[in-house]
């Protein structure tokens, strides 16, 4: 089985959640500088660059012009919020193939200050999107797309709104220790259920936050990683998958995580009980519940029982998740949550998470991202990361 040699050596999350006074490329710059500093490197060391649809202008051309660097390798894989999770895998393979030595991945966005709330506006898709005419007239807001999954999951498996609410409760329990989290108040199941219905069966508190900000990551050749101040993290397993409407034969009860997760576990040789911490994409509570099933932490349809009663709360449950508060409470910059998922896993594996939520002696962590919409088309990317032995 393939073993990746490159190491994840740098991570930085922008502390802002509201940045009306900064340009988009400025945010990309600040997170890039933050990540290279975290790794003990300089922007001039970067010879590989990875970005997705949130980057301004013509992606790497505009951003690299602004940075005034000329990397020899770029990748603009665009699978929505899961892009940055996939970029880690792509960067590692590019480095192992000798295409670059030090790869930078950036994400930034300002949906909050630009009032680009995805929650109440139907997606105005451009005319050349083939699905446009068959979706846009019906007002498919982002919450509505995920609500279609939630409603079907409830119908087939008896999943309840109370069970979904436990996911928000767990995220909020963690967020109270994160001074940068947009929502820092611990909430109860009752708080979630009494919040306004956005798209049945999803309430407002079943949805993630909308924030400005961003983050960046550095992946480097093993020999370079060895000389850096902080220990690099191994990338034991990677997986990627796309799922869509299957030309009308769509099944809303599972996500592409079923396929990306299997790839990552198979490649890593790691078992589910060895995962001590999981960053799980949390655009909505239902996203988490389906992904936990699809990744194999429980049987299909059993996610409701798994997430209930605090099982995702660090120090209390079996699967500590999103200990920064996740997208549900802390940060979902550019309406894309994959970057912050990787960053919190890095903190956990380095022992840099808040002491109240740090998993003791965290050696192996999973990161899972979803991008696009579970109700129509989405990409999934999974990573299994580990501390050096």
């Amino acid at each position, binding site marked *: 089985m393939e073993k990746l040699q490159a190491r994840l050596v740098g991570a930085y999350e922008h502390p802002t959640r509201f940045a009306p006074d900064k340009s988009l490329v400025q945010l990309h710059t600040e997170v890039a500088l933050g990540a290279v500093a975290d790794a003990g490197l300089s922007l001039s060391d970067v010879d590989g660059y990875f970005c997705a649809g949130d980057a301004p202008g013509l992606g790497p051309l505009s951003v690299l012009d602004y940075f005034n660097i000329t990397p020899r390798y770029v990748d603009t894989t665009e699978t929505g919020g899961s892009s940055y999770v996939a970029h880690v895998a792509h960067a590692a393979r590019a480095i192992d193939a000798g295409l670059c030595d030090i790869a930078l991945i950036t994400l930034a966005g300002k949906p909050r200050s630009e009032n680009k709330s995805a929650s*109440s506006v*139907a997606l*105005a898709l451009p*005319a050349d999107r*083939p*699905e*446009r*005419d*068959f*979706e*846009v*007239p*019906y*007002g*498919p*807001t982002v*919450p*509505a797309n995920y*609500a*279609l*999954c*939630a*409603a*079907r999951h409830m*119908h087939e498996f008896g999943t309840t709104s109370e069970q979904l609410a436990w996911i928000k409760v767990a995220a909020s329990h963690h967020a109270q220790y994160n001074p940068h989290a947009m929502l820092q108040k611990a909430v109860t199941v009752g708080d979630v259920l009494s919040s*306004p*219905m*956005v*798209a*049945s*069966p*999803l309430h407002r508190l079943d949805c993630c936050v909308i924030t400005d900000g961003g983050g960046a990551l550095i992946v480097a050749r093993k020999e370079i990683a060895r000389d850096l101040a902080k220990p690099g993290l191994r990338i034991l397993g990677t997986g990627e998958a796309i799922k869509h*409407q299957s*030309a*009308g*034969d*769509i099944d*809303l009860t599972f996500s592409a995580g079923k396929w990306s997760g299997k790839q990552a576990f198979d490649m890593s040789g790691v078992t589910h009980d060895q995962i001590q911490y999981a960053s799980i994409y949390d655009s909505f509570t239902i996203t988490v519940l389906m992904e936990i099933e699809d990744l194999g932490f429980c049987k299909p349809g059993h996610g409701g029982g798994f997430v209930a009663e605090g099982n995702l709360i660090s120090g209390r449950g079996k699967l500590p998740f999103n200990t920064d508060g996740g997208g549900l409470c802390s940060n979902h910059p550019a309406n894309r949550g994959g970057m912050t998922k990787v960053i919190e896993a890095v903190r956990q594996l380095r022992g840099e998470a808040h002491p109240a939520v740090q998993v003791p002696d965290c050696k192996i962590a999973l990161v899972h991202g979803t991008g696009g919409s579970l109700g*129509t088309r989405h990409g999934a990317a999974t990573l299994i990361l580990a501390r050096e032995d």
Partner: protein
Amino acid sequence: MSTTREYIHPEISPEARPFWDAANKGKLVIHTCRDCGRGHHYPRAMCPHCYSADLEWKETDGHGEIYSFSVVTAGKDLPRYVIAYVEIADRVKAMTNIVDCDPDSLRIGQRVKAVFRPSKTGQNILLFSPLESL
């Protein structure tokens, strides 16, 4: 409870034109493969199951079944609306709105029938309504 809303006009791609022409006559057609026999939606220029170009437009009786639905709160002072996937033929589901109904009384598995309403440009849009209310 009003579920009336304005429908954004379709751009209408050339390969889907017969679907929209049929809608303007109050008919639901499904692009179906003459080689493998399967239908698909939305309509494509090839069969997305066997890649044959030998396709035909099959008219249905317009009956379907709700596969999933969500009642969407559009905003303050705006009417709620129902977004759904309706199974319109064997293994063929279409995104749609359920109209002329009490949103709170809908259930998954409910039988519905195609109805058509004009968009702003006058092009008919495919919608569904509970069978018993017709």
